């Protein structure tokens, strides 16, 4: 059978069209992977590689000498053993847990109160208060620390003056950084002050989702404000509360800048360590990188457990869209 040129051409184009279509489908399937490839590769290199090193370092003796030599000596799990037998580690962990619990508790409670206040005040006051909160929100942490330190310095801190004037007590030349308790107290106040705007404004946005007619109906039925809050408001904003709380726990557990700069290096000692500071002092400052790596691994493991709730929720949000 003799093939006419036209059918041959037709068959050819059909085949190429089929090929093109399958190539199109392949491209279609590969596109998302091509799009995420740069980010994944960069993260693998700049984070994956250091994390591999973290694991390796934690099983080595690695100090300044080894840093210069670029080679550590493997010592198995000795670093972990040393850290887990260190009383300071356990005390620091306990202190950090209590510190985190207190700060998160206070931040969420005051933040909720502020959000409810934002609902209650009149429009001009709401504008004033929310602009103030946004201004505080935007303060860089290092700046906030310096201002806090100036406000509470024992010679002529304005906080001492105001408290004395208000007859709260005699705080003339009172040293706020004399005891561990008051040092950590000052750090807590600074952290709460910095965290409140984010929490309050986010919760305020959440409160907007609470249907007004539902609240009104409850009030008409004679429900007290507290009951309205517990039975109507709270269940609706629970998801936001949960996310904010888990975020705050993760952040406050690993906080470094505020305690490190406010307590000042000279006054930092084993008795007022928080987890990040302990890690910084034992690992970096003393150039005991191997042991520091072991502490880091333990700390990362703790934070990973704390993050489960948050990450799961975010994955659900990410997959919804």
């Amino acid at each position: 059978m003799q093939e006419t040129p036209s059918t041959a051409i037709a068959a050819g184009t059909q085949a190429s069209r089929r090929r093109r279509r399958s190539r199109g489908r392949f491209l279609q399937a590969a596109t998302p992977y091509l799009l995420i490839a740069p980010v994944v590769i960069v993260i693998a290199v700049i984070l994956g590689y250091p994390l591999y090193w973290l694991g390796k370092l934690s099983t080595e003796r690695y100090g300044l000498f080894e840093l210069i030599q670029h080679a550590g000596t493997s010592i198995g799990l000795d670093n972990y053993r040393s850290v887990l037998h260190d009383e300071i580690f356990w005390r620091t962990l306990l202190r950090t847990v209590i510190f985190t619990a207190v700060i998160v508790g206070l931040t969420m409670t005051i933040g909720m109160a502020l959000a409810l206040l934002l609902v209650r005040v009149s429009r001009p006051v709401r504008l004033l208060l929310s602009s103030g909160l946004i201004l505080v929100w935007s303060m860089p942490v290092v700046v906030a620390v310096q201002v806090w330190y100036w406000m509470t310095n024992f010679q002529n801190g304005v906080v001492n003056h105001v408290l004395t004037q208000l007859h709260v007590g005699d705080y003339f030349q009172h040293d706020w950084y004399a005891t561990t308790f008051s040092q950590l107290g000052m750090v807590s106040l600074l952290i709460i002050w910095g965290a409140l705007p984010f929490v309050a404004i986010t919760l305020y946005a959440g409160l907007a989702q609470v249907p007004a007619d539902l609240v009104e109906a409850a009030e008409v039925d004679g429900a007290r404000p507290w009951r309205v809050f517990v039975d109507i408001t709270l269940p609706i904003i629970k998801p936001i509360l949960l996310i904010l709380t888990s975020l705050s726990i993760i952040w406050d557990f690993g906080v470094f800048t505020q305690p490190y700069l406010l307590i000042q290096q000279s006054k930092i000692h084993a008795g007022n360590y928080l987890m990040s500071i302990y890690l910084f002092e034992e690992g970096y400052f003393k150039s005991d990188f191997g042991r520091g790596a072991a502490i880091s691994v333990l700390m990362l493991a703790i934070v990973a457990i704390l993050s489960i709730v948050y990450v799961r929720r975010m994955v659900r949000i990410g997959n919804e869209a």
Partner: protein
Amino acid sequence: MSRRSRSRARQTGWDIVGVIVFIVMVFPVFWMISTAFKPDDEIVSLTPTWVSLHPTLAHFRDAINRPYFWQDVRNSLIVVLATVVISIILAFLAAVALARYRFRARTLFIVLVIGIQMLPQAGLIIPLYVVLARFHQVNALTGLVVTYMTFVLPFCVWMLRGFLLGIPKDLEEAAMVDGSTRLGVFVKILLPLMGPGLVATSVFAFITTWNEYIFARVLLNDQSKQTVTVWLSYFLGTSRHTDWGALMAASTLTAIPVVIFFLIVQRRIAFGLTAGAVRG
């Protein structure tokens, strides 16, 4: 008392509480600015002056003439710009994948993006320091840029994804039907619509990077190589006599760019949880 006047009294009560809370919250910021403009005798006085009647710019002059101020501002700008530009470009591509495609590794990728942002920075000091030392990148701005990208990159991916979801898919599909290529759709439709989102994300990335302290403190030892936050943190360490006026002027100067940028973009995301990533 009639019902109406009672509810008005209650409203006034709430408003007074609101104003008091405003004063307490904003006071530290006010005190920083107020101190920065005060003459020295009013600063060291035991009875504080709330607002100086003789404002002076001497402290600002003093602060910017301190050694390394301009050098360190320049360093901060270089690091911030490099980090933000590279991160935004790479993150935008990944954000398109998350917002527009379903693929098998999607959940895994989301876990990666969210999980990394949760890592405590202190936990990464040691490996980053040791690895960068191996490549002679300690005391180098490139090392810091690389370090910052570890957390700016995932943050940008997540935030840009949020903005992309706000753009209806129909627009792109209509353009595809009309015969546009994928690239054409991207350039002609997606990019212009994403303008505000790209700006907002860049600004937030700018703020996080500008404010960063711990990595800059650990990775840059040379005074001429430091960033402005580290410069500010060492401000007190040099002399026994504390120059509060200059310190507050320096603090004000460090905060100004951040505050301005933040006020511009916060409206876009104040009510989205993503904004939380900016908290120090």
